[in-house]
């Protein structure tokens, strides 16, 4: 009986009810969007960082990450390639080899990190190609070619087309020596990168440093950030049968500072969301309160017709619950739709584009719709609304019919 009455009450004053539902709908949409945006922001940050160099997952020799040693190699990249191409979730991959060697010009010698990259596969895994400011990226078929950091090139006084003398030690200790031609100069905006690195073609690196076909790491990009743990397990499983001296590392182990930074951000973000929720709560409570005030006379009539204050309160609560559910459901769907739209098209943060481009950071932010953002967003509004409805409901309990009737 009460349900029917509550339901009919709701629709007896469509305008009022719709306004209240609208408030809840907007609140839900807002929260779902903000939470999706927040989670998306992290994903964007992580994605951007891993695409600079480390990738989502790397396969290396055991112990290589802690102690870089020329001899700790991944001996058979072909085998790794076979595994990677057969696994689900692997979006792209490449191989690299590195060593610390001497690079010199007329009168200056620097110790630099020489990285052998695959000119065709590397752009699918990292943003290095976008950082080339002068000259061009490496191409298949390049041999004695190098990409140099801008600061290094300046210090050595070598322009595009200039020579770099390279002297290092191969995997078996033999001398690696050659003269390279600079084909491109890159600028990542980070001094350390631009001063201490050069990139040469992987095949040539292997020849020069006597790698006997080996590399130092396989760099893997997965379909999405959420796919990473599963892909890591699959790789580890596939490897354990074949070569157990290799280690599989994910982006967290490769970028420990990033995880810390995100956790810090999450903590400060928590405060922001708290404030937002307070505002939302007040908005909703205000809406309910207003609705109750508007209906004071109506309540007076009901009470004078014999409805007890307890029952009235129960009725009111049921109405509120009904409105809330309708509002939350519609709001969730609408919120998900809006978020989905921006997830596809991205959102531009004003003032950030130029800056972002310079540092290889993304220009657009993409909110990330997920079960979590929907559940938490809708859940918070649900709880808040129910709580907000309690206060006016209790106020109703103390109403005196005579007063109520005379209200305007």
């Amino acid at each position: 009986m009460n349900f029917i009455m509550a339901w009919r009450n709701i629709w007896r004053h469509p305008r009022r009810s719709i306004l209240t539902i609208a408030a809840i709908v907007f609140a839900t949409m807002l929260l779902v969007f903000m939470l999706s945006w927040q989670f998306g922001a992290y994903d964007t940050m992580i994605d951007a960082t891993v695409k600079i160099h480390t990738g989502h997952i790397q396969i290396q020799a055991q112990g290589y990450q802690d102690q870089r040693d020329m001899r700790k190699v991944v001996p058979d990249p072909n085998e790794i390639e076979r595994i990677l191409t057969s696994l689900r979730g692997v979006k792209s991959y490449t191989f690299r080899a590195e060593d610390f060697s001497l690079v010199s010009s007329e009168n200056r010698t620097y110790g630099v990190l020489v990285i052998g990259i695959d000119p065709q596969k590397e752009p699918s895994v990292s943003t290095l190609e976008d950082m080339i400011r002068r000259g061009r990226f490496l191409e298949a078929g390049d041999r004695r070619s190098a990409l140099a950091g801008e600061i290094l090139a300046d210090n050595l006084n070598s322009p595009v087309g200039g020579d770099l003398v390279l002297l290092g030690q191969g995997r078996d200790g033999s001398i690696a020596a050659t003269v390279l031609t600079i084909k491109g100069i890159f600028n990542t905006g980070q001094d350390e990168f631009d001063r201490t690195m050069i990139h040469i073609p992987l095949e040539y690196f292997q020849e020069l440093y006597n790698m006997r076909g080996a590399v130092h790491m396989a760099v893997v990009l997965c379909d999405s950030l959420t796919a990473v743990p599963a892909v890591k397990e699959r790789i580890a499983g596939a490897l354990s049968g074949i070569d157990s001296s290799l280690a599989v590392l994910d982006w967290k182990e490769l970028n420990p500072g990033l995880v810390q930074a995100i956790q810090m951000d999450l903590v400060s973000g928590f405060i922001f969301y708290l404030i937002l929720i307070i505002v939302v709560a007040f908005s909703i409570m205000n809406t309910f309160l207003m609705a109750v005030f508007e209906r004071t006379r109506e309540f007076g009539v009901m009470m004078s017709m014999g409805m007890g204050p307890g029952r009235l309160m129960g009725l009111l609560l049921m109405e509120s619950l009904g409105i809330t559910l309708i509002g939350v459901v519609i709001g969730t769907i609408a919120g998900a739709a809006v978020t989905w739209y921006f997830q596809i098209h991205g959102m531009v943060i004003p003032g950030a584009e130029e800056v972002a481009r310079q540092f290889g950071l993304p220009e657009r932010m993409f909110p990330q719709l997920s079960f979590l953002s929907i559940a938490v967003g809708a859940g918070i509004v649900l709880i808040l609304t129910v709580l907000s409805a309690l206060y006016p409901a209790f106020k109703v309990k103390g109403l005196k019919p005579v007063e109520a009737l005379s209200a305007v």
Partner: protein
Amino acid sequence: MILKLAWRNIWRNRRRTAVILTAIVIGLWAMVFLSALMRGIADRMVKNAISTMTGHIKIYHAGYRNDPVIENRIENPGEIKNILQSLPAVRQFTSRIRVNAVAANARHSGGVTLVGIHPGREAGISFTGDAVTEGEYLKDEESQGILVGRALLEKYETRIGHKLVLMSRDASGEIASRAFRIRGIYDAELESTERQFVFVNLAAAQEMLGVNGDVTEFSLLIDDYEEAAAVAASVGRRFDGDDLAVYSWKELLPLVVAVLKMYDGFILFWFAAVFIAIAFGLVNTILMAVFERIREFGLMRALGMKPSFVVAEVSAESFFLLFIGTVAGNLLGAASVAALSQRGIDLSAFAKGIEFAGMSRIIFPVLELGDILTADAAVLVLGMAVGLYPAIRAARFSPVEAMVHM
């Protein structure tokens, strides 16, 4: 006339007014407080970045920044010191030698950055002062002591009291090497910092590199870091003609500057979010209030008031509500910021699992006039716009409608 009417109307129904006002006050408080928090975080970020030896302003030899080798050193530090001491804008300064070196012990060797410091002066300018968590900080008279980061200590499998042999190219191009003893261990925000920087006494570094009192950099602190560019320019003018370059932290930390610019955008974004949060509540409540007062408006129309007057009257009410709410919200916001200005918000309380060492995690909200004015203007203008619909609706009530309504 409209204004007087509007004013009195507001106070006639306290309950209604209170409800609407609350929404506005809370919304505005949220905007002010949020922006202050964000500015506080940005502030903290800048201060952290600066305290890793960047300082507000740095003076180098002209070629040092791209090629930080001992050849590019400052050979007249005494002169510079005198000039800096005479400048009122410069609050504190210190000088250092910073070169790339190789650190080795019996089991490991690797590249590090050797930093020769004045221990006393350095403590007031960079993170090193508070960062030593084990052993002791360097003493001014120390010649054999070295401070290393915890991550480096672990990588080299060594401990306090043990040796570290440092090798670098000296001023005459030869290889100089010198043994130091680990006196203290420091913890920094990033492990990579701990692995990179080792600190010794400036005199010891000068002796090792054969440079006779020369240094490679000066680091200055001024009163307000926002002013750094201007002060750097004026300091630079004093050294015109010398082979020196003067940089403000903005030129040295472009990434930090970039992130700061992004914060401006973020604040607008959050303002929008908060405004939307209060806007729907505002529209609804004002609308409901208007409908509650149907008889009132019908009466006004019956008494001959033109529809445009009704619109104006309701809008005036909205204006007063917005205005009072804005002022109250501003005051509340300012008060909350003031309340936190002593102790700040300690983030580490929220994240107990994370270790924060060397850099403080306390955020002090910072009020910025620009933000407050933006928030006020937005609320007033948009609030009026939002209140237009209820106003128009109110004007449309015919007297007959009103009388029939219950």
